[in-house]
């Protein structure tokens, strides 16, 4: 058990070192992230012109929402992107991985940890600390709320990871992944509440979004952070995240098992 963990730890360390070697890439990525933050900041500022609060959400809370949302997106963005997983399947590189004595989905997760740690420590954390100090938006007021936010954000991270890898593995069955990829990116940008929180959705669309796993990625942690989700609703939110994580993980495992069989059939 300890030995296995240590082995996966090596992947994390190596990927951290690789990220450090290509730090130019990490820092240019944060530049794009900040430009998007800038855009959404002014879009929301303009939307709130002449309005106190909309759907009982003030601009102050909304500013906090987009700040924490962009910060989380910056962290998520440091992981292996969908197209890279697809590329590995398409080129057959993934077959080499399967020969090795480790579990591929787990290894990818630990590899992502490395680049995320690097990106978080050298780019996201310092930058967003400064931004938060400058704008002083709504932040968690109690330690408990802060802790719950972190738990929720971590759950959100795992949900996104499972979904993204599952979508990547679909490449085993599809020669061309164009459509699948677009469904993924569209869902993750709209239904996750990454840029527009679910409060502002029309009721029917909000209902749709609430029945999808994507809301657990950004919407739930962000809402906890700005204090829009508290008490019983907060616990329900966290519970939904856990349920979705279990479901998404089960689907990932199922798809992975099927995909492994597929390789065996085609190999030889």
């Amino acid at each position, binding site marked *: 058990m300890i030995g296995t963990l240590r082995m996966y730890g090596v992947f994390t360390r190596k990927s951290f070192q690789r990220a450090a070697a290509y730090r130019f890439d990490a820092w240019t990525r944060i530049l*794009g992230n900040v*430009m998007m933050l800038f855009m959404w900041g002014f*879009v929301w500022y303009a939307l709130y*012109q002449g309005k106190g609060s909309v759907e009982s959400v003030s601009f102050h809370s909304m500013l906090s929402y987009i700040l924490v949302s962009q910060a989380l997106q910056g962290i998520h963005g440091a992981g292996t992107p969908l197209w890279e997983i697809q590329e590995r399947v398409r080129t057959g590189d993934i077959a080499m991985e399967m020969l090795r004595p480790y579990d591929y989905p787990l290894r990818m997760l630990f590899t992502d940890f490395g680049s995320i740690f690097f990106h978080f420590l050298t780019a996201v954390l310092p930058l967003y600390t400064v931004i938060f100090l400058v704008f002083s938006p709504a932040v968690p007021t109690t330690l408990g709320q802060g802790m719950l936010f972190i738990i929720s954000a971590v759950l959100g991270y795992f949900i996104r990871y499972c979904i993204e890898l599952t979508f990547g593995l679909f490449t085993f069955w599809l020669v*061309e992944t*164009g459509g699948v990829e677009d469904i993924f990116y569209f869902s993750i940008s*709209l239904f996750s509440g990454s840029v*527009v929180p679910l*409060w502002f959705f*029309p009721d029917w669309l909000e209902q749709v979004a609430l029945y999808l796993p994507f809301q657990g990625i950004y919407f739930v942690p962000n809402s906890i952070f700005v204090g829009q989700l508290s008490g019983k609703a907060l616990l329900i939110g966290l519970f939904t995240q856990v349920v979705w994580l279990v479901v998404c993980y089960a689907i990932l495992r199922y798809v992975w098992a099927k995909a492994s069989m597929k390789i065996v059939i085609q190999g030889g």
Partner: protein
Amino acid sequence: MQSWLRGIKMYFYMIGVSIRTQLQYRYAFVMNILGWAMTYAGTAITMWVLLYSFGAIEGWSFWELLFLFALSVLSWGVCVVLFFHFRTLDQFIIQGTFDRFLVRPIHPFFHFMAMKFDIGAFGQFLFSIVAVAMAYQRLGLHWNLWQWLVFLGAVIGGTLIQGGLLIAISAMAFWTTRSERFYWVVMWPAKSLMNYPLSIYPRMVQILVAFILPFAFVNYLPALLLLGKKSGIYPPYWGFFSILVGVLFFWLCFQLWMLGLNRYKSAGS
């Protein structure tokens, strides 16, 4: 003159080859087009959701905002067809494969441009033409001849401005051996800014996109004219000048590319 004619003939021959290559995979071809159309429709849906609770942004209703967005997607579509592969110039320089563009009897710029003719951009056309038509109808617009000319000018000017910027970004590869990164961290976010009315941004940014990287002439300024909107800062007739700004900016970017080309030293052995 004759060499120009020959160059143009060769360009069409080469893009013919590129189109036939892409048509080999029918399913991929269709999915590529639908995928692009869906991506833009997704952004439009996000805008609709945003304005559902808020009504308007700086006095722009959803349909006006959609028109603004679709206008930039339309010229971006033309730009993708002709120039989008310029962002990958760094790969050719790093791998040393750029050399082959220098030894052929055709201008290297032309040759590189002719390498690909991305028909996936029909997805952009599909989205933007449907969106512009819907906005045109919903807003009850009736353009006269000169407004149609402004519209056409915005598409041509927008193509030249965005294409020029892509070329300038690709030229960076001659100095830094990087270009694709610059596209994703500079041009893509800057382009996204223009999906919303320019007037929501601080004055510094407005000056930047009006005079230095003239994105304002791609959609915002022509849209003011075409939708009959008033903006305190910009004289309404500025929208006429998209084509002029486009030609000038494209020429400058082309000069930069040629400057880089002259400086280029092969990485290959």
